[in-house]
């Protein structure tokens, strides 16, 4: 089979599934899910074929699509290391989640639609990844946003879900504007949007001399603003925690291989461009480090399991970007890959618990005996958690090592320290989560502080069927294996990315990170795991810090108070201008005319001599005027 056909099948199968289901089988759930699963399988097989025996480079398909001025924009499928690797990850994780959803969503009346949207999500992400030009990337970037909007707001009768979807869409769109403007400027600067061309230009061919200084920085910064929105970096990170209002499979997908991954992948895709903008890279580093630290602190005090995972995603995305910004394409991309596995795993585990116990609250889950009743899930949780914490030899460990390793040199010292700190916090809050579920302290203090609103869990009725049906266990096992194994694929990934020399840090280099991760675990053990622990984190004992962290540094509050109010106020102002000014003014003008007419009519008083007199006076005036001139 030729690559063109495989590539087209791979990227288009989900679209076919989406369209078929949406038009024909929205309410025939079994058919709908079957179609989507088949498409997922087709994609998975196709992506695997492309990954393992595809051509290393080149656009395998392109069609004239659009014209801007004199430039033809083509719709294309680009195969190279980055896209093949990412495509395979997307296909694999999506397929796992689709299987998982079979059971998870089995009682939802809208699951036909759900599967359709999943297919749309996959399709958008795939074409984003495989796009041959930046405009195509942008388009599918937007569609990824649209699909996640639809999925976050899937339970659209729940106001919180609708609000979360809206927030996600608008906040990412703010970033998109940066990306869009950056895209246009890039287009103007280099005169092409072709990914390969751009890569070549920035990789070595050199830029035209005429480019104004700072122009590349500007473009890169604008592109990065898009990433900030999409990958939920500070200061546009606040939508992601809310986004778990969607069904848990959606969260799993959103946080691992799609949506947020798109942002990072954009930087991966245009890493050459970013490397040409050192100023921007510093900026990225600052933002990424800030985000990693900030969201770790938030994760430390959250009790909603999905929320903890959401904060951890933000933090890990920060890590990826740190790696990329430090100049290591491999580190960032490696972490993106491994993270996709263990984060999907963690979410699926969380979903499994939630599905069973009907709550998102970790304390409540633990108390309900989560660890005992759901063994496989719990194993998955421990493995995923360990990977997230960076415990060797799991996936997260290697990739995180790569990132920390890339932050060498004195100029990166502060970021390295930040990375260590974030790694420590990650280990701590991950194992806080693990211990809360594994070792529920029945009489621990934590129980009294049931957080409000944690009962919004998406499982509608408790305890249906076996606790761990195969559709749920299967993906968890698969991803657990992936998490266990992915860490060793580093060389393979590097090879796929055409990176010749991968720096494998020596044990001595790795030691601090291992120690720090273990320290975090130990501290978590002391606070939550050991017998008789009060199960109140050390941070929770500092009221000021706790308030700050629990309220997510008040960032949302400030946004609501400042930006939302500003927008509403501005809208009010405009509305007032409309009703009283433009619209009201027009009405006033009309009323004025009518009033003038009324006066005019009154002047026709019916008195003949007044009429004649007026006429004569006016004629006299005119005669006088004529006489003068």
């Amino acid at each position, binding site marked *: 089979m030729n690559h063109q056909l495989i590539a087209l099948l791979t990227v288009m199968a989900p679209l076919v599934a989406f369209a078929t289901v949406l038009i024909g089988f929205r309410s025939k759930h079994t058919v709908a899910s079957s179609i989507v699963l088949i498409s997922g399988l087709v994609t998975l097989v196709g992506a695997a074929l492309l990954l393992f025996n595809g051509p290393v480079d080149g656009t395998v398909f392109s069609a004239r699509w659009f014209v801007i001025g004199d430039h033809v924009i083509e719709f294309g499928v680009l195969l190279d290391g980055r896209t093949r690797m990412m495509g395979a990850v997307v296909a694999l994780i999506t397929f796992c989640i689709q299987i998982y959803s079979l059971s998870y969503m089995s009682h939802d009346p809208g699951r036909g639609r759900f599967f359709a949207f999943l297919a749309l999500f996959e399709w958008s992400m795939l074409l984003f990844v495989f796009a041959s030009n930046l405009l195509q990337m942008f388009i599918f970037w937007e569609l990824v946003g649209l699909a996640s909007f639809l999925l976050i707001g899937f339970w659209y009768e729940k106001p919180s879900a609708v609000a979360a979807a809206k927030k996600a869409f608008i906040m990412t769109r703010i970033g998109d504007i940066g990306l869009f403007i950056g895209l246009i400027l890039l287009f103007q600067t280099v005169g092409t949007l072709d990914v390969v061309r751009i890569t070549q230009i920035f990789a070595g061919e050199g830029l035209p001399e005429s480019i104004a200084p700072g122009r590349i920085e500007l473009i890169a910064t604008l592109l990065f603003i898009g990433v900030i929105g999409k990958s939920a970096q500070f200061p546009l990170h606040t939508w992601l925690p809310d986004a778990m209002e969607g069904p848990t499979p959606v969260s799993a997908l959103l946080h691992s291989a799609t949506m947020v991954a798109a942002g990072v992948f954009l930087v991966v895709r245009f890493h050459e461009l970013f490397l040409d903008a050192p100023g921007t890279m510093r900026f990225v580093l600052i933002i990424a480090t800030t985000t990693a630290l900030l969201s770790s602190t938030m994760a430390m005090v959250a009790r909603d399991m999905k929320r903890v995972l959401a904060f951890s995603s933000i933090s890990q995305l920060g890590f990826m970007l740190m790696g990329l910004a430090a100049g290591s394409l491999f580190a960032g991309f490696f972490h993106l890959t491994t993270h996709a596995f263990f984060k999907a795993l963690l979410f699926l585990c969380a979903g499994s618990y939630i599905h069973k116990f009907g709550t998102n609250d970790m304390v409540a889950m633990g108390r309900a005996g989560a660890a005992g009743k759901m063994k496989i899930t719990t194993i998955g949780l421990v493995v995923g958690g360990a990977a997230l914490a960076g415990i060797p030899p799991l996936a997260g460990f290697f990739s995180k090592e790569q990132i920390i390793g890339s932050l060498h040199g004195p100029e990166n010292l502060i970021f390295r320290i930040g990375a260590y700190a974030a790694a420590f916090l990650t280990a701590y809050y991950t194992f806080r989560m693990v211990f809360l579920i594994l070792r529920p302290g029945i009489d621990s203090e934590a129980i009294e502080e049931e957080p409000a609103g944690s009962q919004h869990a998406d499982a509608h009725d408790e305890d249906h069927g076996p606790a761990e049906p195969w559709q749920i266990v299967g993906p968890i096992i698969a991803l657990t294996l992936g998490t266990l194994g992915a860490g060793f694929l580093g060389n393979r990934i590097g090879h796929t990315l055409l990176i010749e020399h991968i720096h494998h840090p020596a044990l001595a280099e790795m030691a601090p990170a291992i120690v720090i991760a273990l320290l975090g675990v130990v501290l978590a053990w002391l606070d939550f795991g050991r017998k008789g622990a009060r199960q109140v984190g050390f941070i929770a004992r500092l009221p000021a810090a706790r308030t700050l962290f629990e309220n997510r540094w008040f960032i949302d509050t400030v946004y609501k108070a400042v930006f939302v109010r500003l927008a509403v106020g501005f809208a009010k102002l405009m509305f007032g201008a409309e009703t009283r000014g433009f619209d009201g003014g027009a009405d006033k003008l009309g009323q004025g005319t009518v009033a003038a*007419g009324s006066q005019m*009519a009154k002047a*026709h008083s*019916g008195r003949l001599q007044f009429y004649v007199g007026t*006429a004569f006076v006016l*004629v006299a005036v*005119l005669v006088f*005027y004529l006489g003068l*001139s």
Partner: protein
Amino acid sequence: MGDLTLFVPEAVVLLGAIVAFVLSVIGSSYRVNWIASVIMAILGVAMSIAWLGAAGEPFFPGIYRVDAFSQLLKVGITTGLFLSVLIAGNPGSVREHSRIDFPMFLFFSAVGMMMMVSATELITLYVALELSAYGLYILAALNKRQREGSEAAAKYVLFGAASSAVTLFGISLIFGVARSTLLSEIIATQPTPLMVIGVLLALSGVLFKLAVFPFHAWAPDTYQGAPHEAVTFIGTASKVAAVGVIARLLFLAIPAHDSLVNALLVLCVASMTVGNLAAIVQNDIKRVLAYSTVAQAGYILIGLVSFSSMGVASAIYYAVIYVPIVFCAFLVVCVLGADGSNPTKSSIAGLYQRSPLLAATLLVGMFGLAGIPPTSGFMGKWFLFSAAIKSDLLWLVLIGAINATVSLYYYLRIIKEAYLTPPADETAIKVSPATAIAAGLGMTLVLVMGIYPRLLWELAEAAAKAIN
């Protein structure tokens, strides 16, 4: 003596007057009189059309000229006459015992108007002016509601007499300067300021007829108080005649036209504005139409003050198409006011349910007045405005167009009443066959001249050339 056959159209209309007179004297019924009048009016229209291409001087040299200009206007006048007679089959608003005389006055007045547009000598012109006016004065007094009729007639006649005195004063000044009353000789004279003043004063009588500000104030009152059928005639044919006279007189002062143009511009703008504004708040449909006439007179003046061949052509075009347009509106007034009352906005409410034909006629008439395509009013305005801009009067066109916008407001409100408001009385309105034919004819004329303006426009252009 010239070729007397050139006088045939006028003669036919004069004959119509005589026939009507004889029939009334021998005591025949109104019906007979009316049928005879319709026939004579048709003859008049036919003769005017047949004599369209005629040119020459039927009488003493220099006093009466038959040319493309006069003949086209005569077609307009006789059309107005014909349409007015056609709907007067049962003139409900005319006093019973005066009805029999009604057609005769129409015909006499029409003769006067036809002579007005042919007259090329000041005294002939004046005599024709008075001849056309006298009939109208009487007609205005024939209202069934005599109290209103008499007031309308009194205002009309006194205002008219006063302005005709001014006209005459102007004529005397022209005579004093040019020492002749023949237009051909006057035009050869170097105009002095006194002469220009004389022209302006002489114009006042025709401005009065056309109801141009400040000689307009009689119009609303007279329209309101005079019988509908009479107003139909006043509102149609006499405007055509007045436009003809103004066009002729204006050319007397061409070499010194700057200040005169400025004076007329003032009148033009004031007419449009006053007419449109005052029309907004009217409730009586006839008053609306009266004020709208004032405004329309302003539009016509736009063409005339452009002082170009095209301007005159556009004014002539507008005056001629104006006849069927206004007729459409008045036809509805006549039918609705068949009991002698004046239709108001409330009495046309729901007209559509009561008589779709009348509603459509009203719609066409109103759109024509507002200048909405595909009615001829649109083309008319377009030509007028084109002429003005050719003469660098862009701002005047702007004012005119804004005025047209304002006017749309009250035209639309009338249409709204007719089409939207539910009727108070749902009984269908009976429309006599003659009226139905008249309505169809009116609408056809309005629409055809809007969609196919070419023929009439070329005639108007020829007319404008003839006047120079």
